[in-house]
C-alpha cells in the first residue's frame, strides 16, 4: 500500500511539473520595442513603481528614431547646414576654402552621436531596474510572449503589455533590389558613397530631408513625386518657399510623375518615368532612394493568438488610453496610427504607463506639431489652412512674410513666412504654421498657444524678444488686427 502511495505521489509530481514548467520569466509590464514610444513607456512605468521588462532587437533603447531616423538624419542635416552657411558667408565677406568631405569620418561622427545617446538610454534603463531583453517578441496568447533571442526562445508571462514595435519603410514592388543601388532611409543614412546622380522617389519629408543631405554633399539630386506637389500634409504657401530654394539645390523636381520601371544597366540604374499626359522619359542614375512612406510593424507579432486585429492600413486600433481590443494590452507609436512621429509616440507611451498604474489618463492632445527639417524648415501645429477650408470653418488667416523680419535679414534668410489660422468668432488660435530657418524650434509656442486656448490678442500682447525670429509670431498677431510696425497693409 505504501509503495502504491509513493508511486501515485511520483506521478503527481510529474504531472504538476508539466503544469508548472512552461514559463521562464514573468513580469508585471512588458514593453515590446524600445523606440521613442517604448522606452519612455518602460521608464515611466518603472518610475511609477511597476516591475517592467523591455524587449528590443538592439542592445540599447533608441528604436528607429535614434538608430536610423530622427537623430542620424538631423546629424547629417546639420552637416549640410554648416556647408551651406559657409557657402553663403561669401557675400558677407568671408570666403572659406572649398570643403573637403571625408565620408568615413562623417559616418563615424554620426555613429558616435547615435552611440552616445543610445548608451545613455541603456544606463537610464539599468538604474531604473528595467529588465532588458535583446530579441524578437511575439504573442503566444494574450498573457504570454515568446522571445527569440538568436535561436534561444524564452516564454515570458505578463499582466500588461505595451506594443511599441514602430514601422518600416514601404517598398515598391519589382525594383532591382539585388543591384545594391537602391536605398531606403536606413541605408541612405549610412552614406556608403556619394552618388553622382541620385533619384529620390517620394516628395515627403524623409525624401526631401535625405535628398538635401546628399545634395549638400555633392550629389545631383532629382525628386519624383506622383502628386502635384511636395509635402502634401503642409499648406501650399509654406511649401512654395521651400520648393523655390530646393530648385536651386536639386537637379530637378518632377511632380505628377510616376516611376514606371527601373533596370540595372552597366552598374547604373535606368529609370523610366511616366508624366502627367502619358509623357515618357528615361534617365540614368547612380542610386535610387525609395522614400514612399512607412508601414506599421504589426505583422509576425502573433496578434492572431490574441483578440487584436489590425485595420485596413495595418495599424493596431486603440482607444483613448491606447488600449487595444485586449484591454490589458496597449499599442503606441507608429504601430498605433498616424501621425507617425516620435513625440507623439512618447506622449502615448506615458499615457499607457499611467493607465496601467491605474491613473485616470487619456491621450487627448489638442494639437501635435510636425516639423520638416529641410532648409528652410517647415513646421506647423493645429489645423492647416487647407483643412480649415475643407471643413468649412469660419477662420481668418494672418500672414507675416519674413522679408519684414529684422532678424531674418541679419541672417540673410528672408525666405520665410509665419501664419496664424484663427477662429473668426472667438479669435482663438487654431493653427500656426512657419517656414524659415529654425521654424522647428519656434513651433512649440504655437502648440502651447493652442493647448492653453490662447487667442490672437494673447499672442499680440506677449512681448517677444528683439531681434529674434520668434517676433514674427507676435507680428503676425498684429497683422491680424491690421497694424504691424514692419508690415504695411492697405486697408
Amino acid at each position, binding site marked *: 500500500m505504501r509503495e502504491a502511495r509513493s508511486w501515485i505521489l511520483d506521478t503527481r509530481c510529474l504531472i504538476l511539473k508539466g503544469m508548472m514548467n512552461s514559463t521562464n520569466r514573468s513580469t508585471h509590464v512588458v514593453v515590446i520595442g524600445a523606440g521613442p514610444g517604448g522606452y519612455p513607456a518602460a521608464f515611466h512605468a518603472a518610475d511609477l513603481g511597476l516591475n517592467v521588462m523591455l524587449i528590443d532587437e538592439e542592445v540599447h533603447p533608441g528604436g528607429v528614431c535614434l538608430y536610423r531616423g530622427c537623430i542620424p538624419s538631423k546629424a547629417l542635416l546639420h552637416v549640410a547646414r554648416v556647408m551651406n552657411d559657409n557657402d553663403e558667408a561669401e557675400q558677407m565677406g568671408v570666403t572659406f576654402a572649398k570643403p573637403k568631405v571625408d565620408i568615413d569620418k562623417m559616418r563615424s561622427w554620426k555613429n558616435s552621436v547615435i552611440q552616445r545617446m543610445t548608451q545613455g538610454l541603456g544606463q537610464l534603463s539599468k538604474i531604473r531596474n528595467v529588465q532588458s531583453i535583446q530579441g524578437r517578441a511575439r504573442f503566444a496568447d494574450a*498573457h504570454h510572449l515568446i522571445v527569440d533571442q538568436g535561436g534561444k526562445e524564452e516564454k515570458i508571462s505578463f499582466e500588461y503589455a505595451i506594443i511599441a514595435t514602430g514601422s518600416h519603410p514601404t517598398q515598391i514592388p519589382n525594383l532591382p533590389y539585388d543591384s545594391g543601388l537602391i536605398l531606403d532611409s536606413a541605408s541612405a543614412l549610412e552614406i556608403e558613397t556619394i552618388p553622382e546622380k541620385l533619384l529620390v522617389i517620394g516628395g515627403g519629408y524623409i525624401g526631401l530631408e535625405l535628398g538635401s543631405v546628399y545634395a549638400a554633399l555633392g550629389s545631383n539630386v532629382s525628386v519624383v513625386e506622383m502628386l502635384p506637389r511636395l509635402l502634401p500634409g503642409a499648406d501650399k504657401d509654406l511649401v512654395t518657399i521651400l520648393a523655390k530654394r530646393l530648385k536651386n539645390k536639386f537637379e530637378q523636381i518632377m511632380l505628377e510623375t510616376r516611376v514606371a520601371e527601373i533596370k540595372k544597366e552597366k552598374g547604373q540604374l535606368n529609370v523610366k518615368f511616366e508624366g502627367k499626359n502619358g509623357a515618357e522619359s528615361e534617365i540614368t542614375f547612380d542610386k535610387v532612394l525609395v522614400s514612399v512612406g512607412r508601414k506599421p510593424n504589426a505583422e509576425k507579432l502573433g496578434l492572431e493568438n490574441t483578440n487584436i486585429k489590425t485595420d485596413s492600413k495595418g495599424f493596431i*486600433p486603440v482607444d483613448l488610453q491606447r*488600449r487595444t*481590443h485586449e*484591454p490589458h494590452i496597449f499599442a503606441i507609436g507608429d504601430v498605433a496610427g498616424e*501621425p507617425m512621429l516620435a513625440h507623439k509616440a512618447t506622449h502615448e507611451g506615458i499615457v499607457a504607463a499611467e493607465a496601467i498604474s*491605474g491613473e485616470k489618463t487619456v491621450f487627448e492632445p489638442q494639437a501635435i506639431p510636425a516639423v520638416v527639417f529641410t532648409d528652410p524648415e517647415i513646421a506647423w501645429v493645429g489645423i492647416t489652412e487647407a483643412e480649415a477650408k475643407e471643413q468649412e470653418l469660419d477662420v481668418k488667416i494672418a500672414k507675416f512674410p519674413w522679408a519684414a523680419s529684422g532678424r531674418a535679414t541679419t541672417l540673410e534668410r528672408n525666405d520665410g513666412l509665419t501664419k496664424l489660422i484663427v477662429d473668426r468668432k*472667438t479669435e482663438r488660435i487654431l493653427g500656426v504654421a512657419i517656414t524659415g530657418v529654425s521654424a522647428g524650434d519656434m513651433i512649440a509656442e504655437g502648440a502651447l498657444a493652442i493647448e492653453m486656448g490662447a487667442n490672437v490678442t494673447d499672442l499680440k500682447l506677449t512681448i517677444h524678444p528683439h531681434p529674434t525670429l520668434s517676433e514674427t509670431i507676435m507680428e503676425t498677431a498684429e497683422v491680424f488686427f491690421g497694424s504691424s510696425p514692419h508690415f504695411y497693409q492697405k486697408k
Partner: protein
Amino acid sequence: MKDNSIEFKIPELGENITEGDVVKVLVSVGEPIHVDQALLELETGKAAVEIPSEINGTIKEVLIKDGDKVKVGQIVIKLETHQKEEPAVPPTDTQEKDSPPKNRTSDTPKIKEALPTPPSPNPSATDTTSRSHVPVRAAPSVRKFAREIGVNISEVTSSDGRITVNNVKAYAKQRLTQEPLASTNTGIPSPSIPDFSKWGKVGKESISTIRKITARHMAMCWSTIPHVTQHDKADITDLEKIRKHFKQKAEDAGGKLTPTAILTKIVAAALKAFPTFNASIDVQKNEVIYKKYCHIGVAVDIPKGLLVPVIRDVDKKNIIELSVELSRLAEETRKNTISPDKLQGGCFTISNIGGIGGTHFTPIVNFPEVAILGVGQATHEPVYIDGNFEPRLIMPLSLSYDHRLIDGANGARFLRWIVKAINEPLLLALEG
C-alpha cells in the same frame, strides 16, 4: 444697496466623498473675498482640494478651524455680500458666446465598452490629429484635473470662455447637488448606541474610508443573500509534500508557492465543472449570468480593512505564474499601490485565515459573486487508514453560497470535488 448674508456650505466634490478634513482655513473674519478665491483647503480620502467662493463679499464668521472634520453640506463660513447673489457659473445657460462645442469628450473612456477608435481615416506622413473644431478652451492641466474628478470638461462653462480649475470645481459641485448620491444603505435604520463612558474609559477613532466601504458592502451582502455554509475537511498531506518540492521553483520565479496559490487553480477547475458557481443573479431582469472567464479574488487583510485583489484568467495560467502574481498582488495591496481595476471583476473569492489559526468559519458571500471558500488552519489529525490511525495533515474548508441559485446538494458536490482534488491532485490533471 441691499445687504445679503450668505451661508457657505461644503460643496460636493466627487463620487463617494461625503466628508473631509479641513487642512487649512484660508480666510479670516473681515477679509474681503472675490469669486473663485479659495476659502479653505479640504482633504478627502482621495485628494486635497481648495474650495472656492462663489461670490464677492466679506467674511462675517468662520465656523471651523484647521483639523476639523466637516461633512458635505455643512455650513462652515458666513459671508456678507453687497451685491445681488450671483453664482459664478450660470446655472444652465450653456449657449455662451464662447462656449466650446459639445461633441468633444475628454472623459476617461469607459474601457470595458469602448470599442477602440480607429486611427485617422486619411493618414499622411505628417498628419496631426484632433483638429476638426475649436477645442475646449482649457489648459492641459485643467483638462487633467477635470478627468481625474470625473467631470466632462466640454460641459463646463465660464464667463469669459476660458475654463479654470475653479470653474471645474464649481461645475462638479453644481452637478452633484442636482443629483444626490444614491443611498447605499440597506434600509434598516441602525439603533443609536448608549454613552459607554458612563461605565468606564473609552477611546474614539473615526472610521477609515476602506472600513466604511467594507462595512456597507458586508451589510448589503449579508442582508440580501440567503447564505448557507457547508463544512468539509481535505487531506493535504501529499499536496504539502509536492508544495515543498516545488517551493524553490516558485521562489526562483519571484513568487511564493502558498496553499492559496494552489487552491486558486483547483477552484478554477471546480468552477469549470460547476458553472452555477461562476454565475451572478440579476434579480431585476430575472436572469442568471454565467461567466465564461475565470477571475478569482483572494482576500488580503491589511491594517485598514479587508481588500480582495483579483487574479485574472486563473484557468489559463500555471501554478507558478499564479504564485508569482498572487505574491505581487498581495504586496501591492498591503503597500496600498494596487490599482482599483485589480479589485474588481472577480467570479469567486477565497478567504484563507489559516495563517492565523482556527478551523471552520462562515464566510460572507462577496456580492455579485455567489460563493466563497473559507480556509482554516491545517493541523495533524489521526486518520483511520487500512486498519491503522495515521497522522495526516487536515485542512478545514467552509463553503458559503447563495441559496437562491445553489441548492444544498450542489453545494455539497462542489465542496466534495474540491476536497477530492486536494486529496488527489491527479484528478485535477485528468478532469480539470
